[in-house]
């Protein structure tokens, strides 16, 4: 247990240090950038006289603490961060940035959790059967080849292909948005179905891109396990092939696969930013994209920081929980 405590301290320090650097960089970049981002941004939003803009800029600067020196600003910034205040959006003024992010988060997490799990289930089961059939089955060899293709192609390529295929050629799925505009977001069947319908293409593109990996890893795991003595023993016991596959081979091969699933959950927020952009899906990725195109600095800063934080935190959480869950590491300590 001593080594685990040391590991815990190490991970925690890494987490704190990376967060500190991220905050500092996110704080500094817009301030060191040439020009006055606030003025530039406001000039695009507010039509009208110069003095009006000057006054608003001054107002903003005071609100954001930009009239102070850099060190004071930095301390203020961090203080506000700890209170959960990420500032105010410019394009949705005066909505706090944190509120906008909170609205986008469920979309990203919902999409990625669902697709990760679906893809894991499909890939794992087909992979298990493919591994069990072994290298001798032509059908499954072709499947493995396709899986390899899916695995090496970057995920956003699928989004582009699907968008083209279904958006222009077979127009059966909507090309953008999370739901039909005008529909009231609520927990009724109509809205849920509408969301599923809108999510089909983004979901499909994510599933396709991760399916190959789950398939290949499960397949090779089963092929490995097949050579184990306890499989030979199960066969000698006269068990049916199916029983040997599911009770002996699968149950052993699934352990690393479950680990893989747990580890991949670290990407549930920022795992498909470009997919969201391509399908104008109202998650964090698309939020950052619109914030950038609108030069909404506080929103960009807030969203990027939030993304960094959740990703770092999920990594941190998985890193410290993993040794407690995986029996192999635990037994190693005994």
């Amino acid at each position, binding site marked *: 247990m001593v080594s685990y405590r040391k590991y815990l301290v190490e991970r925690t320090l890494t987490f704190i240090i990376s967060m500190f650097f991220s905050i500092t960089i996110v704080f500094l970049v817009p301030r060191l950038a040439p020009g006055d981002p606030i003025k530039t941004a406001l000039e695009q939003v507010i039509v009208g006289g110069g003095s009006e803009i000057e006054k608003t800029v001054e107002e903003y600067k005071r609100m954001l603490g930009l009239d102070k020196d850099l060190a004071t600003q930095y301390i203020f910034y961090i203080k506000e961060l700890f209170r959960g205040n990420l500032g105010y959006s410019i394009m949705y003024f005066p909505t706090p940035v944190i509120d906008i992010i909170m609205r986008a988060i469920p979309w990203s997490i919902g999409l990625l959790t669902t697709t990760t799990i679906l893809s894991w289930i499909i890939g794992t089961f087909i992979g298990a059967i493919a591994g069990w059939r072994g290298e001798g089955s032509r059908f499954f060899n072709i499947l493995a080849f396709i899986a390899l293709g899916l695995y090496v192609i970057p995920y956003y390529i699928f989004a582009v292909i699907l968008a083209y295929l279904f958006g222009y050629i077979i127009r059966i799925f909507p090309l953008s948005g999370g739901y039909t505009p005008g529909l009231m977001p609520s927990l009724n069947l109509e809205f849920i179905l509408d969301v599923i319908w809108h999510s089909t293409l983004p979901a499909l593109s994510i599933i396709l891109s991760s399916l190959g990996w789950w398939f290949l890893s499960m397949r090779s795991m089963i092929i490995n396990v097949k050579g*184990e*003595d*306890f499989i*030979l*023993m*199960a*066969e*000698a*016991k*006269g*068990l*049916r092939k199916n*029983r040997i596959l599911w*009770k*002996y081979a699968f*149950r*052993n091969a699934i*352990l690393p696969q479950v680990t893989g699933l747990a580890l991949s959950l670290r990407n549930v927020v920022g795992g498909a930013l470009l997919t969201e952009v391509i399908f104008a899906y109202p998650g964090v990725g698309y939020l950052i994209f619109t914030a950038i195109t609108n030069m909404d600095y506080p929103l960009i800063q807030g969203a990027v920081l939030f993304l960094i934080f959740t990703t770092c935190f999920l990594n941190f959480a998985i890193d410290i929980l993993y040794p407690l869950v995986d029996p192999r590491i635990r*037994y190693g300590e005994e």
Partner: protein
Amino acid sequence: MPDTLLDVRNLIAYYMTPTAPVRAVDNVSFNVTEKEILGIAGESGCGKSTLAYSILRLLKPPGYIRGGEVLFKGSDLLKIEEEELRRIRWKHISYIPQSSMNALNPVMRIEEQIGDAIINHEKISKGELRKRIEDLLVSVGLSPSVAHMYPHELSGGMRQRVVIAMAMALDPELIIADEPTTALDVVVQRGILQLLRDIRSKLKASVIMITHDMAAQAQIVDRLAIMYAGKIVEIGDANDLFNDPLHPYSRALISAIPSISEKKKLKGVPGFPPDLRSPPPGCRFYPRCPHRIPGKCNVDEPRLIEVKNDRLVACHLYR
């Protein structure tokens, strides 16, 4: 004359390799009668495990059976339908593998693994099944609580006992034990041998007991077959064979048994076994044989013939 249970005839099993096949089991014939323990001894690599896999039809690629028959109570195990074979396995022939360390499924409790073998072949109530598993564990000297454990919670010797219990679960007619003691340390080995000797008297089954440990063989077998480089070179009554080995290889092997009383130096068998991809012509023991007859032994392959009552030898010295 006791009934023949297993009759192995001209069995040939090779391993495919890029150069030439490994002739691991090359024209092996022997039989096992009811309730007898047949020992199979020979240096490591002479094809003992391959022989066991072949009899059980468990040989995996690149291994393949090139020919021969494995007649179990008259029906050829190598030819019967998969489904029929499945029903014979464990119910009639069970198996104790070479390394029982890995023979147990790491993610299943012991009771589940023994139970799996039983419910696969018999209809039995839950209560009876539990009772049966506990009795089996007790019969191999384990506590009934082992039933609820996972393999990693058991020592090597305990796992070996579990596998032995499993092999006896369905009262099979034949048990094939492939080096059941080699992976264990000496003290545990002695315990397992004691156990095998104990159950030997209670057992109604025939046993094929494979080992390269001649001392272990000496203690429990009725008949003994000596294997060399994929072939049986001598087979006969165990006592008789131990006292009066005829084949030069058998003599070398038996005189190599360390004996505490005589304080004899362990000699081993000088030389190395041949590469089974290109075994020497004639007698395969020729290159190492102290009594070889040049011009004969390296030309003519000696056949396994009866040279005295219940003793078959494949050697040109005896004709």
